């Protein structure tokens, strides 16, 4: 039980940081909102999706998934900063559970995602996004996004524990996430890509997540165009498998790395 309450104390620390420096929330929100507006008004007019309601219906799930995928960066950079400042050493000198600090941080980053997703959803609504699947499915969609963000956060933990400097963490995470979100169906259909890329894009967890969210928010054409591959036919199932897989691999690896950091 102590393990959970220890983790929550670390989470609370992150929320307190947001309360003490509100700009932190502000800027976490502004960027995704800016993305929504830019894509909606820059590309929205010129991309014909054949979708009722237009591009924004396809776009929103894509931007949601991209945003939560970037939780990885926030987690990694935050953790590296804590290590550099010696805070992680101090935490490690305390009689607390060995994974509390990591769970605390990933939960804290998930909590911030709730705020960010809410702000994005409202912005989307204002510019014409209308999920048609009913409250329950919309709720389910957002829950999916939160869990995916949490899973990605653990990838960030491993990166954060592995690099020595904040700047390296920033660059490493961008290199990890950008191809992931662009080699996907998030902003354009995969059917237009060269064959090998299309293959990668369709098996990309970001694609299955985007497709799953489109489905949960009530779109028929989840991949933006009929792709016909296994992941494009079963995005919900594939997304769940991916999330479990990511967590099953990265949580134990990260916790081990954290505990072994005394060997360095």
């Amino acid at each position: 039980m102590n393990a959970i309450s220890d983790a929550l104390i670390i989470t609370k620390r992150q929320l307190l940081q947001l309360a003490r420096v509100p700009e932190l929330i502000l800027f976490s929100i502004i960027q995704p909102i800016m993305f929504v507006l830019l894509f909606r008004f820059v590309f929205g007019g010129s991309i014909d999706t054949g979708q009722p309601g237009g591009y924004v219906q396809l776009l929103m799930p894509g931007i949601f998934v991209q945003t939560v995928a970037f939780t990885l960066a926030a987690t990694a950079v935050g953790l590296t900063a804590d290590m550099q400042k010696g805070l992680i050493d101090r935490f490690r000198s305390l009689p607390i559970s060995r994974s509390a600090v990591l769970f605390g941080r990933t939960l804290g980053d998930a909590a911030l995602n709730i705020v960010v997703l809410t702000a994005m959803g409202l912005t989307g609504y204002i510019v014409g996004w209308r999920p048609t699947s009913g409250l329950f499915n919309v709720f389910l969609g957002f829950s999916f996004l939160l869990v995916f963000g949490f899973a990605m956060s653990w990838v960030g933990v491993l990166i954060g524990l592995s690099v020595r400097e904040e700047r390296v963490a920033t660059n490493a995470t961008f290199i990890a996430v950008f191809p992931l979100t662009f080699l996907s169906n998030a902003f354009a259909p995969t059917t237009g890509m060269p064959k090998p890329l299309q293959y990668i894009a369709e098996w990309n967890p970001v694609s299955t997540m985007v497709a799953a969210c489109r489905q949960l928010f009530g779109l028929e054409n989840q991949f933006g165009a009929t792709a016909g591959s296994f992941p494009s036919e079963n995005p919900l199932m594939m997304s769940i498998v991916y999330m479990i897989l990511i967590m099953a691999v990265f949580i134990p690896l990260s916790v081990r790395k954290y505990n072994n950091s005394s060997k360095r």
Partner: protein
Amino acid sequence: MKAVIAEGLIKTYNKGSIKALDGLSLDVEEGTVLGVLGPNGAGKTTTVRILATLLAPDSGRVSVAGIDVLKHPDEVRKIIGLSGQYAAVDETLTGWDNLIMFGRLYHLSANAAKSRAIELLEQFNLTEAAKRPIRTYSGGMRRRLDLAASLIIRPKVLFLDEPTTGLDPRGRQDMWGVIDDLVKGGVTLLLTTQYLEEADHLADEIAVIDHGKVIARGTSDLLKKQVGGERLEIVVENQDLTAAKEIVAQVSGGGGINVDEGLRQVSAPVTTGSKALIEAAKLLDEKGIHPLDIGLKRPSLDDVFLALTGHVAEEKKDEEVLLTQGRKRGK
């Protein structure tokens, strides 16, 4: 009983190419203070990190309060406090937030954490700054808050890694006062320092380390005897040198007088400290001699190293001579 024992610690970095600790052994008697004195890179931080469960040595044995640190680190963490070389607190949060957070992580109840935070802020003279973010604190305030955070559970054994490095003389004095009080409260303390003066003032016993090994240990008196204690130094005009020499002989009791005509300096070892200084000044004044410079030179870390190893401390940084006169604790 020994509160801290380290035996034959070896720690290498970069696959053995850097030898940080080379068979270091030390121990601290319960309720006493051990000062670990050494230049940059001697292995002070590495030693402290191993004792405080943060780092595993390649080989060697470590125990704190009779508990094997390598086998039962969690048990050790419940009874130690650590304040590292650089203040490790959350800069974004206030001093209050930090103390509450660490209190809760030590599993104090919400109320206990609050009352302990109030106590500690008071004790460390930080009550007024409690609600300010740490990033607005001065270096000294940060250090004090960091120390306060390591005292939340009233640890039996406390590790302080260079607690006064980077503080101004006033900050150093304050920190010494705080540490003195802690020691009176009965804590076992291991502190590291680059300043002989500091080890002399705070520690019951001193271990001098160099290149990852203890090269000398003993009380500061013992060490000083090896090094040769304070020297009275007077610089005068050439025509006054002979008179000055007589005065120095009178004050120091005669032995080991050194006259350097080039520097126009007379010096001799003294045992009575500032008293010798005042006396010499009085005698000079009576004779109408105005010294160009007069002072006590304390042995520095350099002198210790010179005396112990025949070479000066390598890789040293700001080797400042402390201006402050160390108040002796009666022990």
